[in-house]
């Protein structure tokens, strides 16, 4: 208790130096917390968006389907087996048929993926009901994503020509009207995709109720279905998780540097104190304070920097972070559109108790370490040398 009181007295007597050191540490802690929360928020948002608008509860793929190989697409579809068909009929699964094609917006040629979907599907939180619209002149109803529409310079009501190759190998073409623009933050659902009804694409392909994949609402699917493979949510999120992991490495380096700067402030205060306060330390020792108590006193002083910094962070950054978590933040209009990632134009950092507690604990442990280390120098000091200002 006596050593604690002395440490507190030393700390309070240092006045402005104490507050500046604690404030720098507080900035570091806040920056660490914010960056962790921002990354977690981005991951949360990407997960939510991809789950709602791209993945659902998982997907059952035709065994030949490979999203990275468009050449197999022609053969990667089949009629759904009974197990899956019954899920579709119950509304627990939603089929998608994909075929390669091209579109001619305003006379230009563009490759496109023609995707046949049930307009009334309930697996994804996206509205495809405008595909039900019946247009004049036998024009098909199609939907395209907003960023694809922007790229093509097309809007709702515009007409485009769709060309595709039938299963028999012949080319065919038809006019279609954009009945609605699909608003989605999942880039995969947008870029290069032209949505038509499942039935229409089957007709274009010369097939009956064929599908390339099926979205399922939950991951409760039959364990083995001949010719079909279940891909769960985590499998389909792997690219995002890998991307976040690689970002986290870069981010750790960044906030490692921030932490280093903050700890330098404490280390500087503590380590320099060993030299600047050597006479004072010698005096404490001459009066009978043991080396261990001197070390203890310095460690307590350092620990208090951590505690004050934590308190400061909670006071100034707490309300700010709470507000940011509620209101989100925008980076000058940048969004997932610009980076090809699944999130909107506002970022919502996510602060959890575990994350806040973990960062506080980590920073405080580091502060204790850098306070302890220079004081080891003191323990090797003979009082006479300390009084003379020498380190033995």
């Amino acid at each position, binding site marked *: 208790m*006596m050593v604690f*009181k*002395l440490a507190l*007295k*030393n700390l309070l*007597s*240092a006045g402005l130096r104490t507050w500046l050191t604690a404030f720098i540490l507080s900035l570091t802690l806040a920056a660490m917390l914010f960056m962790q929360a921002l990354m977690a928020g981005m991951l949360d948002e990407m997960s939510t968006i991809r789950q709602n608008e791209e993945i659902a509860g998982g997907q059952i793929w035709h065994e030949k389907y490979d999203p990275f190989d468009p050449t197999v697409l022609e053969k990667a579809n089949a009629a759904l087996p009974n197990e899956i068909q019954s899920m579709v009929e119950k509304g627990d699964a939603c089929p998608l048929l994909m075929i390669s094609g091209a579109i001619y917006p305003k006379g230009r040629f563009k490759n496109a993926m023609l995707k046949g979907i049930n307009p009334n599907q309930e697996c994804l939180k996206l509205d495809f009901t405008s595909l039900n619209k019946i247009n004049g002149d036998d024009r098909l109803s199609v939907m395209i994503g907003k960023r694809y529409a922007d790229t093509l310079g097309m809007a709702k009501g515009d007409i485009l020509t769709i060309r595709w190759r039938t299963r028999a190998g012949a080319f065919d073409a038809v006019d279609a009207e954009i009945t609605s623009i699909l608003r989605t933050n999942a880039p995969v659902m947008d870029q290069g995709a032209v949505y038509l009804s499942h039935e229409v694409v089957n007709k274009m392909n010369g097939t009956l109720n064929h599908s390339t994949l099926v979205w399922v609402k939950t991951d409760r699917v039959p364990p083995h279905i001949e010719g079909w493979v279940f891909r769960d949510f985590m499998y389909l999120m792997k690219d995002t998780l890998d991307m976040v992991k690689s970002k986290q490495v870069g981010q750790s380096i960044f906030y490692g540097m921030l932490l280093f700067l903050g700890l330098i402030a404490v280390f500087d205060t503590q380590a320099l104190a060993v030299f600047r306060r050597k*006479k*004072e330390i*010698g*005096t404490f*020792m*001459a*009066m*009978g*304070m*043991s*080396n*261990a108590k001197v070390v203890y006193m310095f460690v307590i002083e350092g620990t208090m920097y951590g505690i004050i910094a934590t308190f400061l962070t909670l006071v100034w950054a707490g309300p700010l972070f709470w507000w940011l978590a509620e209101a989100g933040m925008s980076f000058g209009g940048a969004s997932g559109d610009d980076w090809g990632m699944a999130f909107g134009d506002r970022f919502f950092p996510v602060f959890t108790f575990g994350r806040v507690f973990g960062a506080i604990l980590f920073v405080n442990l580091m502060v204790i370490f850098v306070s302890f280390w220079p004081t080891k120098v003191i*323990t090797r000091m*003979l*009082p*006479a*040398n300390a*009084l003379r200002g020498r380190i033995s």
Partner: protein
Amino acid sequence: MKELIRLKGLDKIYPVGGEDFFALKNVALSINEGEFSGLVGPSGSGKTTLLNIIGALDQPSNGDVFMYDKRVSRIKATLAAQLRLHNFGFIFQTYNLLNVYSVYENVELPLTLLGWNESRKKKAIQEALEWVGLTDKIKSRPGKLSGGQCQRVAIARAMVKRPKMVLADEPTANLDSENSHNILKTMEEINRKTGTTFLFSTHDQKVIDYLSRIISLKDGQVIEDRQQEPKR
């Protein structure tokens, strides 16, 4: 009088430029309880080194220090700290007061380290500050005091726990003549009243005049050890 300190064959060697430099060489002497004595000699004669070794602030290279016939040289740092805490008071040339503490808190510190309770501390501090005439300055910080007042705080701090021995290293070196006499008078009075042993390290004639025993050092060796009638 009972023997308090005995030094036997004491050497203190520092390596200088690859060779051994003897700061102290084969020093042997004893100091009795209640003495008001001094280590006298020019700069570099080994006074402060000897004082530090007696006070367990430093360790001898060879030889032994005994306190009440118990060997106290080459003991562990923790025991040395205990020895200093319970037996020695120190007065330094540059006062070594803690600037962030008030006069009261500076004097209080040794008692805090001893774990005394508040009422016992308060009584002892009051008495110590009365001895040095600083009861009106208890809230002042050392930075607001004169050199003489600072040294008097240092005396109070050294005396407040009633140590067996006070070791004073050039206590008047930074003081003018009048302040030096006042400080020395105070210490002599305390010595007489309490029987506390005082050992000075000095080459100041004003201090030497107050001493009853003079131990002269030269090049790390005791060259003279004599009693004298104080001349003040």
